[in-house]
């Protein structure tokens, strides 16, 4: 019989996954006095060693190509200088995609997960985002209203720190903001162009500290948030939540711990333990607890439930409704770049600022009735004098060709003249988009893997077309010309490949009706009282606002509820 090593200690809560959802759960639960164990499938994070902040390409002999020139052969997964926290492919941990479908699954394996590098765009869902079915008859309404979650958006913003300004827009609810950051030159041009086109373009809402809070240093404006921030001036769950929680003595972190299944008591039906593989030794371990929080990411959390089968739960745990793995969504992505001659010869200055945009375009056509597609999108803006990287000027080489002085001058002339627009829109959940257990395949630890099904509908394709028209209009209003797709490797002619915007959600949805949903309004499973979900899996829809701030808000609320219920003896 398989030897499983059991922990002697019984923890109040085991949290699985250390990203925005798991990190927030750890923060809230330990601050409420709970004893918590955190399982992370990757290694511990060492910011001073792991983050390549301030390193210039020429300080590394391969300049960022990778030790074996991986970049030049498309084998580098994510930029060399980026925080080491995520991959499109993980050695020994495959997934499959059903024939005729396209989907890419980005996963992270390190303490802090994707929060070490993510874009940190922090947008509240709007009141109508919680009522999609009531608004246009598509999808389903959430069991939660904006007013119920708003206090938790407040807490999330005040804790992680979000820049912004009060604008009074229904499509972009105001929050508790840190001071905004001044727009860069190209962003001023975009704002002026948008003004002419009657499109709002407002200061961005980003989780970077324009002011020191909670002992974290203010931003030093190097623009390299994507590499990870050594001073923790950009939010990451690892630095802002988990490291401080470790100091309380109430958190124990288990790294290299890949959860295999949840163990339930056949009599009570409650979760009593989590079985995981210790990757370093490939031994099976068991950790006992009074409650479990899943924060492994939408699809990984669904996979764990589907793999936790028992006679009492033949379809997987907490899946009597059959919805686990269903309603998978990603944001609709479309990007277009423009060349802006007005920026040629621009007086040089440091345009780094915070990593990412200083202004953005929130959805502006909510009240327009005759649109060709439902719902909406927001627009992210890129540009400025970026640090030159390998590949920065391949576009110039391809377009200009030649060599010598003329090519050298062409690169100089075009430096800083490209402005990028990326649309991020709402996908309507559909029956063709879901993940399930692949019956034929296990990973290197013997855990059955996910198989993905994914299809855009006409709604999304028409929305992406509208993005193209809008971006073209803005570029031309700026006196520029359209260059082409901003992200050709991740976007086809019309729309992004499913999964590549890395906003997976919906696979363990919440709802009032246990026959049609897996979770109640507190992200607690209908079937198992002491099992909760803290990532984007509970989300009933995929509003056009990146999910992370909402993951934090919902995880915060869920954690308070869990602690309170445990105190009352209800869990």
């Amino acid at each position, binding site marked *: 019989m398989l030897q499983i090593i059991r922990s002697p200690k019984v923890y109040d809560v085991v949290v699985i996954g250390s990203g925005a959802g798991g990190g927030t759960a750890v923060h809230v639960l330990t601050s409420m006095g709970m004893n918590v164990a955190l399982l992370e499938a990757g290694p511990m994070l060492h910011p001073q060693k792991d983050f390549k902040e301030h390193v210039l390409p020429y300080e590394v002999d391969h300049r960022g190509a990778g030790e074996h020139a991986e970049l030049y*052969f498309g084998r580098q997964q994510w930029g060399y200088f980026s925080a080491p926290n995520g991959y499109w492919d993980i050695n020994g941990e495959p997934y499959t995609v059903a024939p005729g479908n396209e989907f890419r699954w980005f996963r992270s394996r390190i303490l802090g997960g994707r929060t070490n590098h993510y874009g940190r765009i922090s947008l509240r869902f709007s009141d109508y985002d919680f009522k999609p079915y009531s608004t246009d008859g598509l999808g389903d309404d959430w069991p939660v209203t904006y007013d119920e979650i708003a206090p938790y958006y407040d807490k999330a913003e005040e804790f992680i720190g979000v820049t912004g300004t009060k604008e009074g827009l229904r499509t972009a609810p105001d929050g508790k903001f840190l001071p905004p950051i001044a727009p860069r030159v190209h962003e001023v041009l975009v704002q002026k162009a948008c003004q002419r086109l009657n499109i709002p373009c407002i200061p961005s809402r980003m989780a970077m500290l324009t002011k020191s809070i909670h002992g974290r240093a203010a931003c030093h404006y190097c623009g390299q948030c994507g590499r990870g921030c050594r001073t923790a001036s950009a939010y990451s769950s690892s630095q802002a939540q988990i490291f401080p929680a470790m100091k309380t003595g109430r958190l124990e972190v288990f790294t290299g711990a890949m959860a295999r299944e949840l163990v339930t008591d056949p009599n009570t039906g409650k979760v009593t333990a989590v079985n995981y593989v210790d990757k370093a030794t490939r031994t099976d371990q068991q950790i006992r607890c009074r409650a479990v929080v899943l924060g492994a990411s939408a699809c990984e959390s669904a996979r764990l439930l589907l793999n936790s089968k028992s006679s009492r739960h033949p379809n997987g745990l907490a899946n009597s409704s059959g919805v686990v793995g269903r309603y998978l969504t990603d944001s609709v992505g479309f990007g277009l770049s423009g060349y802006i001659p007005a920026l040629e010869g621009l007086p*040089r200055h440091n345009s780094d600022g915070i990593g990412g945009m200083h202004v953005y375009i929130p959805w502006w056509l909510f009240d327009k009735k005759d649109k060709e597609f439902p719902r909406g999108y927001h627009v992210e803006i890129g540009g400025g004098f970026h640090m*030159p990287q*390998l590949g920065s000027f391949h576009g110039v080489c391809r377009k200009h060709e*030649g060599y010598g002085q003329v090519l050298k001058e062409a690169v100089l002339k075009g430096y800083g003249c490209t402005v990028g627009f990326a649309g991020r829109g709402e996908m309507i959940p559909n029956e063709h988009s879901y993940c399930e257990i692949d019956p034929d395949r296990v990973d290197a630890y013997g855990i059955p893997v996910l198989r993905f099904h994914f299809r855009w509908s006409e709604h999304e394709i028409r929305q992406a077309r509208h993005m193209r028209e809008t971006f073209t209009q803005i570029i031309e209003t700026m006196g520029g010309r359209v260059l082409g797709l901003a992200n050709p490797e991740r976007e086809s002619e019309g729309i992004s490949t499913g999964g590549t915007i890395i906003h997976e959600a919906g696979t363990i949805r919440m709802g009032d009706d246990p026959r049609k949903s897996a979770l109640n309004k507190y992200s607690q499973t209908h079937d198992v009282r002491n099992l909760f979900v803290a990532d984007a899996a509970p989300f009933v829809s995929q509003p056009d606002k990146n999910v992370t701030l909402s993951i934090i808000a919902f995880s915060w609320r869920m954690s308070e509820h869990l602690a309170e219920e445990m105190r009352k003896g209800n869990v």
Partner: protein
Amino acid sequence: MSDENLDLSRRDALRNLGITLTLTTAGAGVVSAQDAAHVHHLVTQEKTAGPYQPKCFNPHEYATLRRLSELIMPADEHSKSAIEAGAPEFIDLLASRNDELAHIYTGGLAWLDQEIERRHGSTFLAAAPEQQTAMLDLIAYRKNESPELGPGIRFFAWVRNMVVDAYFTSKIGMDYLGFMGNGAMSHFSVPQAAIDYALKRSPLA
């Protein structure tokens, strides 16, 4: 936190950078870009000690690569060439670690010599500068695609991309572009003169 991958001098410099950052958060403007530059300077010094010994290419191949590098990114009154920017050693180093890349270069360089030999009776290196540029004028453009020139056009696209990469990721190339970032600032602002410059040149003025 373990810093065993960093040498002592750089570690100290980075530590100083950290201290400067925390002390000057109330100050104005750029505070410690000089410290950042100091760190980079130390690293550059270490790297440029002693002449580079090719690890992949033979002396003739390497000399040819050097000539191609300066033809692609030459020196002018504002900046030095791709040779000084380290393009030949960058390409040699990567080729020494990746066979696929090594074959692209050894094959491409041999093709170049064969082709110019056929036309002018000498290797690329020994050919007159006008003969060298006449050859490049053929393979630097996709419009000249033919069964005869195809391999050269594809090879030149590789060399051009990698020489341009090496050039603009070097200090020489970054200075040429006027890159002023990668600093640490207590406050972010945009020069009004730059905003006015762009607005005046745009249709939005």
